[in-house]
């Protein structure tokens, strides 16, 4: 399995797609998490993401290794943005390519679920009313 893992200021769906597309695969599933303009109906101005980068990369590698163990996935890209992010900005992209689409869906959902549980990245929410959580 080919793996691309990156944490940086700006990420795009396109770079993940460019990495996973290969003529031997037939199904690509991509999850893109974007910054919402609200959280539980409260307007959000921006998010700030920080991370423990060395460990975050390591945890993302562990997730990719689990994906490789569980499913017949040919390629996976896991990208996370850091810094100030505004509504509509992309915060995370997981892209998986497999010969079988069901596998690609399962692996992609597993990877984003795991990322949200284990990868040491934190966001602060800056609400329109001035609160920061």
């Amino acid at each position: 399995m080919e793996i691309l893992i990156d944490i940086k200021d700006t990420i795009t769906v396109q770079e993940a797609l460019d990495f996973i597309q290969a003529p031997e695969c037939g199904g690509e599933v991509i999850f893109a998490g974007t910054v919402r303009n609200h959280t539980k109906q409260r307007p959000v101005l921006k998010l700030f993401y920080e991370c423990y980068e060395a460990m975050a990369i390591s945890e993302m590698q562990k997730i990719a290794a689990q994906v490789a163990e569980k499913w017949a996935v040919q390629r996976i890209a896991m990208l996370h943005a850091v810094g100030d992010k505004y509504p509509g900005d992309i915060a995370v992209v997981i892209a998986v390519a497999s010969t079988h689409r069901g596998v690609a869906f399962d692996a992609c959902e597993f990877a984003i679920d795991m990322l949200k549980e284990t990868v040491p990245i934190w966001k602060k929410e800056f609400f329109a009313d001035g609160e920061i959580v």
Partner: protein
Amino acid sequence: MGILLFGAAKDIAGVPVLEKPEHIRDVATLRDWLYEAYPSLRQLRSVMIAVNRAYAADSQVISATDEIAVIPPVSGG
């Protein structure tokens, strides 16, 4: 080496790095000491300790050269 703090743990301590007291020899002792020094940490849903960039069990021994980090609930994605 110092103890790295992130997210809400950093906000509670007010600093990004703490000095590790000599007497701390394992993860359980470290967590007890942190809760004592910064009682507000108890308000967090969880406080995980990472040793050398991997989540560590309470029983894990800590040596002087280990990279230690305090990991509050993550919220990436």
